[in-house]
């Protein structure tokens, strides 16, 4: 009898190029995603060492972090950002790497376009110089973020040395309540296990509430695995995965598809295999979430109040909470529903796919954005943008008073002109509420697309009508 294996074991074994006691395993990388912010120094390193790109055919680049989301026909005014984009174009041209540039409708946030184009496939190893590469694990891939030195390493060798991480199963049993989205589930998980709760581990999400999610919901869940410290999150492929991948432009050809699908289903963790740890959470106990602090574990249910540091025993945690509340300008005991907002941002690799925009639009339809709030929607890709326009979602947002933008990372991290002013408070569908993340002095509250949209209408944190 063969030894029971986890999905991680299976993918690891299939990619093992070289193994030797006392050194990390050498793994082969199937897909290397590149963007403008973390690649320039890597290409420069290759140049200085006189090394070629080993497999340009396994690299795909796009421009997402810096790019303005306003009119694409206008020049980029930020000289340093423009230079960074030009350097990426020069590098991919020199090495023969495919790029989805800003004049290509398929351009978008790297973690949105990989899945939607079918580049992301089950059983593969995917890396990118971006921590939210964990997103792609939703297909049953091993996908993780790397630094620029390792971007150079993968460009030069198509391999990455890794010591096998531990595994943690996060099982979401039961059924999520109506109005509770994938974002709420995963924020609640991070709130439970903490921002360092899965450091050194790969998360495999299991359980009925995960199985019930659409492919896009699963992408949202795996996307934020890194906010619990896990470099990668994974969900084993099933019929939902297979149906999503059918007929994607870069997926298997139709005559090879069924064979590929059978292979994907066999990736699932064997029933007798064990994880290093298991965390079980009852999905039915989870409410829509709102973050109140300066890391993604500082979250609570929308029906709740800003917590009181006085209730916290650990001195380190109490001080962190005090600092966070000072930065956020919040008073303990304040109901989330009474907190007034200045901005709403719907976008990012976490929540800028078509289903996210549908959920947000449903909460907006026929209503108008609160007069004190400035709200924007930034689709995750050019293709998402077109589909949202065809479905009438863009018109819904515009008529309600939202700005409707071009695709990019935008105000998730504010490297482009989309930033919060100091002191501004924003309900954001992004993934990080770190100090200054969306703009120096800006105050970020992480929420789901439906909550962000409903809050834009109400001017305070709110659930869509009919939810409460």
């Amino acid at each position, binding site marked *: 009898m063969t030894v029971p294996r986890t999905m991680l074991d299976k993918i690891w074994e299939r990619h093992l*190029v*070289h193994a030797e006691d*006392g*050194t*990390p395993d*050498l793994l*082969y990388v199937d897909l290397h995603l590149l963007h403008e*912010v*973390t690649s*320039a*120094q890597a290409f*420069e390193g290759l140049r200085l060492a006189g*090394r070629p790109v*080993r497999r340009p055919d396994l690299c795909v680049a796009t421009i997402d972090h*810096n790019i303005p989301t306003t009119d694409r026909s206008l020049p980029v005014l*930020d000289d*340093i950002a423009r*230079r*960074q984009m030009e*350097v990426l174009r020069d590098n991919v041209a020199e090495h023969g790497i495919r790029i989805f540039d800003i004049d290509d409708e398929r351009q978008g946030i790297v973690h949105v376009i990989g899945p939607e184009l079918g580049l992301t496939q089950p059983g593969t190893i995917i890396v990118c*110089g*971006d*921590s939210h590469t964990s997103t792609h694990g939703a297909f049953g891939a091993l996908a993780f*973020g*790397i*630094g*620029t*030195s*390792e971007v150079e*390493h993968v460009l*030069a*060798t*198509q*391999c990455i*040395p890794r*010591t096998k*991480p531990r595994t943690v199963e996060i099982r979401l049993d039961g059924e999520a309540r109506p109005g509770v989205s994938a974002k709420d589930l995963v924020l609640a998980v991070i709130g439970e296990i903490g*921002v*360092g709760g899965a*450091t*050194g581990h790969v998360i495999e999400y299991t359980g009925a509430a995960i199985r019930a999610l659409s492919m896009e919901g699963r992408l949202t869940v795996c996307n934020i695995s*890194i*906010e619990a*410290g896990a*470099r990668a999150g994974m969900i084993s492929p099933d019929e939902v995965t297979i149906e999503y991948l059918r007929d994607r432009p870069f997926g298997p050809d139709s005559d090879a598809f069924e064979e590929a699908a059978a292979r994907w289903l066999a990736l699932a963790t064997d029933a007798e295999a064990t994880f290093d740890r298991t965390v079980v959470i009852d999905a039915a106990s989870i409410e829509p979430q709102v973050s109140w602090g300066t*890391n993604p574990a500082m979250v609570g249910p929308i029906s709740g109040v800003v917590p009181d540091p006085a209730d916290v025993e650990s001195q*380190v*945690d109490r*001080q*962190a909470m005090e600092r966070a509340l000072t930065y956020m300008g919040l008073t303990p005991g304040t109901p989330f529903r009474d907190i007034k907002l200045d901005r709403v941002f719907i976008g990012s690799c976490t929540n800028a796919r078509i289903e996210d925009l549908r959920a947000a639009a449903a909460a907006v339809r026929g209503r108008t954005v609160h007069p004190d709030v400035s709200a924007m929607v930034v689709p995750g890709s050019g293709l998402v943008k077109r589909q949202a326009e065809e479905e009438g979602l863009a018109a819904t947002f515009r008529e309600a008073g939202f700005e409707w933008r071009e695709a990019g990372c935008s105000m998730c*991290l*504010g*490297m482009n002109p989309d930033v919060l002013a*100091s002191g501004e408070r924003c309900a954001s569908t992004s993934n*990080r509420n*770190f*100090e*200054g*993340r969306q703009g*120096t002095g800006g105050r970020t509250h992480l929420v789901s697309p439906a909550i962000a949209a409903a809050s834009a209408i109400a001017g305070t944190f709110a659930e869509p009508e009919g939810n409460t």
Partner: protein
Amino acid sequence: MDPFTKHTGTLAVMDRADVDTDQIIPKEFLKRIERTGYGRFLFNHWRFDENGDLKADFELNRPEAAGASILIAGRNFGCGSSREHATWALRDYGFRVIIAESVADIFRENADQNGLLVVTLPSEQIGQIMHAPAQSLTVDLEACTVTDSAGFLAQFAIDSFRRDCLLQGLERIGLTLQHVAAIQAFEDRSN
């Protein structure tokens, strides 16, 4: 990469948990295409006020932290973004060692790639160092010890491969390219 064997230096104490890389190097400084020159932007929003003046109460701005080359922090240092610029900024500012209760995975990897030694110690020993009168520490990677002149001694554990790479200043790409035949064989099998 310059090898790391033993280092003695002044200590900067940052008694905080979950210091994220967005704080270490804010995003507005990631647009540059160079690897150098990030030190002056290290902890920019914590170090400087809106007029560009030093904030006196920030840990690195305290007189005793002047010229520090060893940074000691709480748990989960370097969490968040994969930006290697965080490591470049710490090195460029003058840090050679980070001692923490724990660090984020990607941060550790980036530190290794740049000869920035990450030492993890239990919280009790972190507390002892943070509250010790000595402002200078010696970190010996061959002996795997952290010591001070007042008799403090902590032994730390580190993966032997990481240690060897740091001690010898090994370049990882060169190590992998020693296995180019195995890489080629893997590619041949996959096609």
